[in-house]
């Protein structure tokens, strides 16, 4: 792949960026064995030749002088923050020997005693290693803050993993707590181009955010809102559509969802003797099975009595709930004026063009060019299930789910939507797309209580409670060893002090990573992995508008004496005596069970090249093995209209989430039988509404401010904040210069930019320098993730140390009890530190 216009003389090698999880197509200029430049691959329809700052800085990861390039063991048995591990380099054979010996003892005793912190999404196929070892435990998973409640709702609604509005056809885009199309979330490089194009053709963007984020600054309208109250804003808009304007897509709700199904007072559907859900048949004025009544004879609204029992349609139940969610009441919660809620609701439904159709590729679809998009900031809260349900239902009110112009599901990977028929003509709910749902168990096996979240994610933050008080949760063992795989729990988990205590109790810690971090410096053995420019894989993760894999391939000889993570884990599996099971697990997660001719032989060891070659051929055929991908870069193509719009045919979507209530009832019964008392179930509800969460209640305890964290395209996860190229850029932007405080608020407290301030939450406190700005809600303090690292080995990077996650709590009080999603907002007290005038400002000299 040569670029004629390039001023360089060398070879351009196609590959895939690894600076975040999504993997833009790139080409890397290599001359004399040295990588000189990275550019976006213009042939890749995902990122369209664009590349974000992280991707452009990829060389700085490869050639980072602080990378660990050889295996190391610690010689100082003392562990703790600031303790020098006294590393010494060792051979791979010695390193493997130590790790196999120590983990072997754990495995022989009780494999559950291995605690694993997993990162590196692009190599998600490797995340099953702990399961083959025999451990169900994940100390942390990076999705705690983002997708904990998001994915378990996307899956059941339309078989998707994520979601995005239709860049191409949407005309009115409400953006809540998300950087999609501007600065973060799904495939930001290509998405920013698509968003820009949509704006050029006239699409309006309204952004709700406590902070004037990139998405807010570039929007047609920014509406500041209190953190964690976005749902109230949307519930207020739903009230306007249903009770004030009487404008919503009746046909969609009646014909394509379970909104017309009749609901008893106990929250369950009215069912006939055959177990079929009933609707109200207007012809007979009586209930009838849903599949015996033509749509035009079903009623969407109403209260009826059958056999002496009152029944309402699912839609009517939510309509009744919405009565009390007036714009005036929601305004008190959100601080957004009621007229604004009414105006945005009106603009939205007007733009949605109810009843319109559009023909695409010879097929006629509903056309709903207005949609609400959302992500972390709007739903990573203790009632995140209700948040996500609300946003989906609001979109459903205008019938825009998976239709042109509307709110579109995004599949997990190349396999597309998880579509299979469920009961009552519905799409089968798929809340678990990353692994099968674990059955309830008491005592639980997993320390993050995975068996107690039947529709949830993996709530790694609960380890901060369970590992310090295991008996309270019935855990009959304590982990003794830890595997850190590209994960930094001392940075990415809440309640850092508790995490330190947990790590202090570990008898053995092994790290597979590239850098020393807050967490890996606690390791006994460090096994250095290769960077994305030195390793191999095929990648396809959460592609918003495309499908197909792109290749990651070594563009230079690996530096130092590093090994690919796949090779490391395979060698350890071999030495621990379970390489056969490891191969079998790869057979499952790679999908080879669907193509048995590609099954790995459990008795044979495969190189990374052999593995990915089989993977490529199993999907794309014998002609498109790994070598084909290395030459051509990718097999990415735009998703077709059939793959994008209504990919589930006539299956109905859940408007009324009866299965969530049933799941909660089933869990409650099992817990009662097991004698578990005090476990909360109050979020297992079929419909969302407003209720206060812990962060609202903490306000009454004197924590009057809201603290939030945020990121922009410069940074993601932890590793980019130790890259000098990126930190230099971010330090030039005042938004990353300190803890953001509104100018009016700052004046009230006599705070100026550069003042040292302390934020104290119920869980912990942080300090930092104030950055006075106009663009943040007066009751909110903002902490960029760019200033959160507290351990850095690169002398060119200054430690900022305002470690936001210390403010968060990992307990069930701050966890959605149905999804396991974590509350990512903290209530805090604000203090001005004495002597701040003497502090040296680092941000702007």
């Amino acid at each position: 792949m040569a670029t004629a216009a390039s001023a360089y003389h060398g070879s351009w090698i196609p590959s895939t960026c690894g600076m975040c999880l999504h993997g833009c197509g790139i080409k890397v200029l290599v001359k004399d064995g040295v990588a000189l430049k990275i550019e976006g691959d213009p042939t890749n329809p995902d990122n369209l030749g664009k590349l974000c700052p992280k991707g452009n800085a990829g060389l700085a990861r490869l050639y980072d002088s602080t990378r660990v390039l050889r295996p190391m063991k610690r010689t100082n048995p003392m562990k703790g923050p600031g303790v020098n591990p006294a590393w010494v380099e060792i051979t791979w054979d010695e390193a493997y020997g130590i790790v196999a010996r120590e983990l072997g003892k754990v495995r022989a005793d009780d494999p559950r005693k291995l605690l694993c912190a997993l990162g590196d999404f692009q190599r998600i196929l490797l995340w099953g290693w702990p399961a083959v070892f025999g451990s169900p435990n994940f100390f942390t998973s990076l999705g705690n803050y983002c997708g904990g409640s998001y994915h378990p709702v996307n899956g059941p609604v339309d078989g998707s993993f994520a979601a995005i509005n239709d860049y191409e056809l949407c005309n009115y885009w409400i953006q809540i707590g998300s950087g999609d199309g501007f600065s973060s979330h799904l495939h930001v490089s290509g998405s920013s181009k698509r968003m820009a194009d949509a704006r050029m053709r006239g699409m309006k963007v309204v952004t709700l955010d406590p902070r004037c984020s990139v998405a807010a600054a570039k929007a047609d309208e920014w509406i500041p809102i209190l953190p964690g109250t976005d749902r109230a804003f949307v519930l207020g808009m739903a009230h306007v559509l249903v009770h004030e304007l009487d404008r919503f897509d009746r046909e969609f709700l009646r014909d394509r969802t379970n909104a017309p199904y009749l609901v008893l007072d106990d929250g369950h559907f009215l069912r006939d003797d055959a177990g079929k859900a009933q609707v109200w048949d207007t012809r007979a004025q009586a209930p009838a099975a849903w599949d015996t009544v033509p749509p035009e004879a079903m009623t969407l609204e109403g209260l009826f009595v059958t056999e002496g029992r009152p029944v309402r349609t699912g839609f009517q139940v939510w309509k009744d709930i919405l009565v009390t969610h007036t714009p005036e009441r929601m305004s008190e919660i959100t601080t957004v004026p009621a007229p604004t809620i009414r105006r945005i609701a009106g603009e939205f439904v007007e733009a949605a063009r109810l009843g319109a159709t559009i023909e695409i590729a010879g097929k006629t679809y509903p056309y709903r060019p207005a949609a609400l998009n959302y992500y972390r900031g709007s739903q990573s809260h203790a009632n995140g299930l209700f948040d996500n349900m609300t946003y989906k239902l609001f979109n459903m009110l205008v019938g825009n789910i998976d239709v042109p112009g509307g709110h579109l599901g995004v599949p997990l990977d190349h396999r597309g939507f998880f579509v299979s028929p469920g009961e009552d003509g519905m799409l089968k709910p798929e809340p678990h797309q990353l692994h099968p749902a674990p059955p309830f168990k008491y005592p639980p096996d997993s320390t993050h209580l995975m068996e107690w979240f039947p529709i949830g994610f993996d709530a790694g933050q609960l380890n901060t409670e369970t590992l310090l008080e295991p008996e309270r949760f019935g855990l009959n063992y304590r982990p003794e060893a830890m595997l850190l795989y590209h994960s930094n729990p001392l940075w990415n988990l809440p309640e850092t002090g508790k995490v330190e205590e947990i790590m202090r109790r570990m008898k053995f810690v092994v790290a597979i990573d590239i850098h020393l971090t807050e967490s890996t410096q606690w390791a006994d053995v460090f096994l250095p992995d290769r960077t994305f420019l030195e390793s191999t894989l095929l990648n396809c993760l959460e592609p918003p508008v495309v499908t197909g894999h792109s290749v990651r391939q070594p563009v230079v000889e690996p530096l130092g004496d590093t090994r690919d993570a796949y090779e490391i884990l395979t060698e350890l599996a071999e030495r621990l005596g379970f390489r056969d099971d490891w191969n079998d697990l790869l057979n499952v997660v790679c999908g080879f069970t669907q193509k048995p001719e590609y099954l790995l032989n459990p008795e044979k060891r495969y190189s990374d090249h052999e593995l990915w070659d089989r993977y490529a051929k199993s999907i794309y055929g014998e002609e498109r093995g790994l070598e084909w991908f290395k030459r051509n870069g990718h097999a990415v193509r735009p998703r077709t209209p059939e793959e994008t719009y209504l990919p589930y045919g006539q299956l109905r979507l859940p408007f009324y989430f009866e299965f969530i209530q049933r799941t909660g009832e089933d869990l409650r019964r099992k817990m009662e039988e097991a004698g578990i008392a005090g476990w909360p179930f109050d979020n297992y509800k079929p419909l969302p509404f407003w209720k206060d969460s812990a962060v609202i209640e903490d306000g009454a305890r004197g924590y009057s401010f809201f603290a939030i964290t945020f990121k922009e395209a410069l940074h993601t996860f932890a590793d980019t904040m130790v890259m000098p190229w990126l930190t230099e850029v971010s330090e030039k932007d005042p938004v990353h210069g300190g803890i953001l405080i509104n100018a009016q608020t700052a004046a009230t407290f006599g705070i100026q930019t550069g003042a040292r301030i302390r934020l104290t939450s119920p869980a912990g406190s942080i300090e930092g320098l104030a950055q006075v700005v106009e663009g943040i809600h007066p009751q909110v303090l903002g902490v960029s993730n760019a200033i959160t690292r507290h351990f850095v080995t690169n002398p060119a990077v200054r430690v900022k140390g305002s470690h936001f996650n210390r403010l968060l709590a990992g307990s069930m009080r701050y966890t959605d009890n149905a999804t396991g999603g974590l509350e990512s907002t903290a209530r805090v007290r604000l203090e001005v530190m004495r002597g701040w005038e003497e502090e040296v400002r680092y941000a702007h000299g």
Partner: protein
Amino acid sequence: MPTVDVAALGTARKLLGFSKRRVSFGQGTVADLLRQLATVDGGTLYANLTCDGRLRGDFAVLVDGFSLKPDQLDRPLLGGEQVVTLAILRHLHGG
């Protein structure tokens, strides 16, 4: 006699003592095949993988790439199919 290619993964492999084998199999159902497959302890795979005639929740059986539901063990096999059987690991990874 028609044959069926059987692949066994994880626990199923350990039960059978092989990972891949071409098995002679006259006309019958998946359940019949599982009854025919002897485990290393002298039992049958059917006895290990089923409960009350249904596939246990912690095992999976795929025929030509398609996963069978628990009540689909009566699916006929005509010969030439590829049957994969495996135990389900529920703690694959976080996210």
